[in-house]
């Protein structure tokens, strides 16, 4: 049973547009929500992460929006670039420090020039 549900499975966006990827979870004990970016043949790379004490976190063109009551969080990529074309994974875990991460199934983003 997938603990974190991610959508869409694939996404095509024009250069300069906004890419939005959504994730939902059921376990209310989850309190750490990272996003990873993965290029073909590489390991996932941590992009940005949020804890539920804030509703939004922004780093450059990447923003996480978090809705605790709906148990949903999303990644927004502003001014999407062809170099952003990759697979994105959301994840969740509970507690502080090293813990088991539960991953979504991934979204393949393609940004067309």
């Amino acid at each position, binding site marked *: 049973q997938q603990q974190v549900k991610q959508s869409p499975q694939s996404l095509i966006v024009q250069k300069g547009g906004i890419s939005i990827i959504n994730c939902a979870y059921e376990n209310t004990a989850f309190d750490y929500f990272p996003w990873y970016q993965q290029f073909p043949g590489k390991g996932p790379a941590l992009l940005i992460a949020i804890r539920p004490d804030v509703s939004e976190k922004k780093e450059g063109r990447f923003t996480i929006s978090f809705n605790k009551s709906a148990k949903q969080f999303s990644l927004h990529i502003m001014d999407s670039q062809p170099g952003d074309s990759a697979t994105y994974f959301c994840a969740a875990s509970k507690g502080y420090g090293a813990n088991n*991460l539960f991953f979504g199934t991934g979204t393949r983003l393609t940004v067309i020039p």
Partner: protein
Amino acid sequence: DAGITQSPRHKVTETGTPVTLRCHQTENHRYMYWYRQDPGHGLRLIHYSYGVKDTDKGEVSDGYSVSRSKTEDFLLTLESATSSQTSVYFCAITPAGKDEQYFGPGTRLTVT
């Protein structure tokens, strides 16, 4: 890749043979993890370690064992490989005092 090396990077083996994958890190990180990545499943935790000789099971541990006799090495063993274990295997670490996990480059394993 967070100072993590994985070996081998690619391996093809036959059903029923034992296979050991190695994760090596040079920065004395206490926490290490093994995940597998499969289409439609994302990444799933196999086993993790919180110190030398301290390991525990993840959500998909059946058919796998691990060992950690030195801080820098975390070994994943498939005692008798099956085709369902064809996957890409990633090692990860968590630096002390942090929440983040950082991943290695992966090992692509094919069981024929």
